[in-house]
């Protein structure tokens, strides 16, 4: 990649930040050049962001339909999945999966609620609400 090939088309997912990439100067030496972003990166980053949004939205519909607990929505909203939430809380996956059932979630102890809230970085009382 030459200096003048460093992508500067902008990448919305960088939020206005620029990154440093190596490119070849006229004398053939590699050096760091500031890049405003590459569309390719934007596409693949958006793909991952969108996937979580899609999962969160589907979860929201299930919560509204009474098929799932709000925990599932918050899990995807915080870009986690079942294995990660289980690791973050230190619970078995089957327990977390069980807590995604609305009836079980409603009876959840205060201690477990705190554990989920802590792992998801939110207040325990927000846990059962959808924004």
């Amino acid at each position: 990649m030459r200096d003048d090939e460093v992508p500067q088309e902008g990448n919305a997912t960088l939020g206005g930040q620029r990154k440093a990439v190596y490119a070849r100067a006229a004398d053939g030496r590699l050096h760091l050049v500031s890049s405003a972003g590459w569309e390719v990166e934007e596409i693949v980053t958006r793909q991952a962001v969108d996937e979580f949004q899609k999962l969160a939205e589907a979860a929201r519909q299930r919560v509204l339909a009474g098929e799932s607990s709000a925990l599932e929505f918050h899990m995807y909203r915080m870009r986690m999945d079942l294995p990660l939430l289980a690791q973050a809380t230190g619970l078995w996956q089957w327990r977390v999966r069980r807590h995604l059932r609305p009836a079980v979630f409603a009876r959840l102890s205060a201690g477990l609620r705190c554990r989920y809230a802590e792992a998801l970085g939110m207040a325990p009382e927000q846990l059962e609400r959808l924004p």
Partner: protein
Amino acid sequence: MTREFVHRQASHCESGAISGLLAHHGLPLSEAMVFGLSSALSFAYLPIVKINGLPLVAYRMPPRFIIKGLQKPLQLKMRFETFRDPASGERRLNELLAAGEVVGMQTSVFWLPYMPQDLRFHFNAHNVLACGRDPQSGDYRLSDPVVEELVNCPAPDLLRARFAKGVLAPKGLLYYPVNRPQAPDWARALPAAMRKTTRIMLDSPLPVIGVGGIRWLARAFERLDADRQAEHARMFVGQVVRMQEEIGTGGAGFRFIYAAFLQESADLLGKPVFGELAERLIDIGDEWREFALATARMIRGRDPLRPALLAARLRALADRETKFFRDLRQAL
């Protein structure tokens, strides 16, 4: 007596962080030199380690490899500390900062508030340096190697980032040098580091590491069902490019860093052959970029989704890298 820390933006977090730490301790080495000298270039396709349900693809050696690899050539003594509970981890960081130390930390990108929202995924091996603390607000002053300027980070956020759970959990890891690093014996250290990289890329006993890993990944691409499971196939190929470009700097980026290292080595050793090899590696890096571009076009639907075509590109890359590292070995 505490020296002001100079922040420099780098292309990759770990090599950038170490380069910054070393410069702060009186040994200015470029990011590329740090990366090459620690033999950090690699390729690994790990189908068993899942991140959000998709396999891990790495274009460099695992976290902490760079830091550890530099200890011998630089006669550097690095201290690593991990913590069982967050409170003691925070206390220790404050102690070190109060003593004027600049401290390396492993963090999760997701919990760092200054990161762009769209890049905040649960990736646990992001390296940043703490270089001070604002006495009023209690915010930490961080040098994040991939960010342009020094940033501030509130204490609760940093604590969360340091004690995130999951794959590669940082456990509050702190690291800092405890002696003054020495400039290496270049004539010995550089060839040794290159030889190690050729070994990692060519002779790995595991089929998923090195150039063999690229072929293994190509096979996984060929097995994707683009007709019946198009969504899964798109996520799978996207993940590979994401690892290549977003997290750290990825395949192309790492190849460029290593090429810069080869150029520096050519000068230090007076061997122009490494400069010629650097040229070839830059071309290989460009081909990785073309692979990324072709993949992105398929994800967006600008080209029809044909994972087999991408697999062919991967195989071509594997062949080129095999030849490249064999020639590098010959040149030593």
